[in-house]
């Protein structure tokens, strides 16, 4: 069993001062094995902070990131699942499922994690999953000011992935759970 934290669009020091305190207290080292970040951390300090939670950090580059060495897209394999990460501002229309599904096929991944819209979404699509963890700090986006801080924790175990969605609504952390099962293993056979 592997716990993978997915978060992004922090926009720290530009649009938000820091992660919400309640999130920070939950994110303790020792539990999470991988972090997938959709980008827009903006400053290096956030990168360092994420590394304190878990050293295995995978970041795609957002349009506001100071660090230019982050890749546009990145794929990694965890257990039997292949994961892809992309910030999402390149995929137009923004947040469109069909466009994202195109990217998912392009990257040949089971789970695609994107950001940019600052809205949590999770779609099951063509035997794969497309997840948007939203903005971890609740920073406004270019589309809307009405953003709740949220991030996603994926529990990957064999052919099953349980997605825990953490959302801060009115100062309370709400947790939701979505279950996905991978039906065929042929996709990752290569």
């Amino acid at each position: 069993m592997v716990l993978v934290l997915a978060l992004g669009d922090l926009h720290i020091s530009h649009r938000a001062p820091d992660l919400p305190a309640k999130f920070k207290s939950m994110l303790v080292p020792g539990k999470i094995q991988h972090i997938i970040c959709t980008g827009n951390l903006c400053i290096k300090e956030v990168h360092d902070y994420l590394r304190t939670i878990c050293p295995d950090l995978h970041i795609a580059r957002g349009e506001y990131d100071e660090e230019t060495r982050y890749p546009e897209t990145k794929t990694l394999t965890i257990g039997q699942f292949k994961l892809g990460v992309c910030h999402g501002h390149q995929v137009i229309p923004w947040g469109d499922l069909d466009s994202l599904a195109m990217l998912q096929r392009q990257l040949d991944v089971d789970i695609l994690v994107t950001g940019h819209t600052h809205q949590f979404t999770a779609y099951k699509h063509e035997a794969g999953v497309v997840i948007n963890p939203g903005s971890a700090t609740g920073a406004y986006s270019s589309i809307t000011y009405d953003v709740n801080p949220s991030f996603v924790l994926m529990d990957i175990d064999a052919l099953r992935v349980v997605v825990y969605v953490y959302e801060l609504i009115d100062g309370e952390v709400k947790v939701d759970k979505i279950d996905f099962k991978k039906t065929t293993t042929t996709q990752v056979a290569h």
Partner: protein
Amino acid sequence: MRPAAPIEPTLTEYSSVDSSPTRLNPEGSASDNRRFADFRGVRWRIDLGILPDSSSIYDLRRVTADSRRRYAGLRRRLLTDPQNGSNSPGLVMDNPLSQNPDSMWGRFFRNAELERMVDQDLSRLYPEHGSYFQTPGCQSMLRRILLFWCLIHPEYGYRQGMHELLAPLLYILHADVGHLSEVRKLYEDHFIDKFDGVSFHESDLTYNFDFKKFPESVDDGIDSQISPLKVSNLDELDPRIQDIILLSDAYGAEGELGIVLSEKFMEHDAYSMFDGLMSGAGGTVAMAEFFSPSLGGSHTGLPPVIEASSALYHLLSTVDASLYSHLVELGVEPQYFALRWLRVLFGREFSLEDLLVIWDQIFVCDNTKLNKCSDDVGSSVGVLSSARGAFISAIAVSMILHMRSSLLATENATSCLQRLLNFPSNINLKKILVKAKSLQVLALDVNNLTTLLVHPGSFEPSKSVVVRGHSLSLNCISPRTPLSLVPESYWEGKWRDLNKAEELKQSSSDKQVPDRKKDWSEKVRFSLSRTESAPSPSKVDSSKKDPKLCVRRNLLEDLSRQLGLEEGSEKLRCNEDLGPKDPTSMYVEVYGQDCIGKNNSSTVEERCLSGNAGSEESNSIFSDSPSPNDDENQSERSSVATNLSVDENEDESNNVESRRMHVEESPLPVSDSPEDASWKSGLNRDSVGKTTARLDSSEDVSLKSGQNNDIMGKPVAAFKERKLLSGKFQWFWKFGRNSGEGTSERGVSEAIKAPNSGNDQSNTDASLTVNGSNSSSVSSKGDAVDQNVMITLRNLGQSMFENIQVIESTFQQERGQVGSLENFSKNVLVGKGQVTAMSALKELRKISNLLSEM
């Protein structure tokens, strides 16, 4: 019975493979007669209080099933799978990032942590035994059991070593199942057919069935007809086999769950055994206590394992004081090695096969608290207060005793610990167990005494665990020793009595002698068995070892003879004790006016007192080993003085005679000092007795010979003498060390004593002190007459010269005898020793010439 014949060999064969008690058990017969002798797992379960010790198979099966059900419930409750428990309503609480420790995920992470720790140890568990313990099945069983136990007992948690306690338990269950299948093969018909037989009540059917099965195993036709006939009736079977069949009958009480020996429920059984072992099942020896860092139920304010290990030292101190004081002197705290021994019940020191035998013996012992008095007094040394605890510490002590000689040979704590922690693997297990059995009685006795004594405030609950207990310096009286219960030691009493009226002395000695004697003989018996059992090679002086060894053997024989005598009549001992007393009292009377004599006696008294105080157990025979030495020295000294005819008189020689008598018995306690460590222990003993630093030889001299002069008020002479003597003595010590043999021969002893190692030391001592005493007596005389320093020195030189002559003549004689020495083994050394001795004498002669010329 005929049918039993083919089975018996197989059983014993199996058990020998399994090294079951039938082969290695020192009291094989006793344990063989017990039920389920072949099934260690069942036996242990009864001993550990998991199964009732009842005769009814039904009870056994019922209790077995109950314990299995308990474990199954536990397992259901504790095995958390957070993913499957997804329907829990509070997702806010039950999510992977939850901070709530009671949440499923919180538990899950804790368990995972624990499992990692357990796994680290399990992967290294008996790696050479790979066949069983490293199999994934066994590993996961061990892991689960440990995990559950730790979860149930969060106050202890998992500690390294627990897995080594569990592993043998699982192993014997595994072995039992294997054994069962062997038996099952032999009695296949019974295991299979019973139900059929019962249901049909058709005996013919069964017979025919049996008949078909048996011909392979039986040779001739007649037997084949007889054997099925007999075996077919369950009641006629060997009761042991009958039990086995009933135990493994799937249709008995509780059905399949009640099968006492079942591979399916090995994990359940192992857990209940482990739990029983750890919690002690209501008894005193709860292994879990040994892992707990907190203070146990005891009042001593120490972790139980520390307490237990100091109890172990305590037992050692009563059994073998010299070894004990050696260890204490080196600063080897008992917990340094006992922690490891006790926590895994010697699992690291013995091979698995041997360990099973040891555990057999341990578990057989009763675990209920023995002494009733401990309840009101409040505390006893926890581990010793049951038969099982006593036996555990007895094993530990016998292990120490097994390494006795090599331990005594060590010179620092590191090497000593090294030997303690690397217990030899090629040991005679039987001997250790037999010795432990005999020590167990003593351990219980000791414990009883301790309970009375320990309180209150005898233990300082000091913060640092390491500092307390056995780092007590030798000179302070340990409050812990039960032996100080006895109002006064023999020697103490004796010397006190000397200054008192006659009748007082009489009564007190009468009082003391009996119990002392008993103690003594007990002790000697121990030392006898020890020396007989452990003639382990000495590392220091392998060349010297042999002669001494055989001498020691002789001495042992004498000793045992004497022992027998003593057991017969206490009178003899009384006489011996009283015998020397009268002359010594005369001695005191005569010398009462004489200030020299007074000083002498008083210093000796002091010495003895301090000796007794110093050695931690005052009534043990070992404690007076310093005092005999002293006495010996004294007597030798004075005898030489008479030989030289300075001015001492019949009284002194009288005294000498009486002392001789004394000396004859005094070597006995000394005799058990092992050959290799003789020099060292001799030193120790001396230093204990005199409470002076041994290394400083000038100090020594001042004690031995200088006192008189000091008191006589001739500081100048005394000082000069002492200086001279100290130089000489240093030289002499070296000399004595190099050629103990030669010196001892030369030693004034026309003596009757057998030259064992202890005597060697004392003789050396004696001959060394000769000079000192001579000079002192001479000087004191000279001082008394005219206070001329020169005369003193000249006298000294003269007496020295005479002394040398005496020594040389003895030497010449001896050289003549060399060929026909009874002690043939000495030949090797004599040549070398003589050369050194002669050169030493030459040196001496030079000095004496110098002195007399002055």
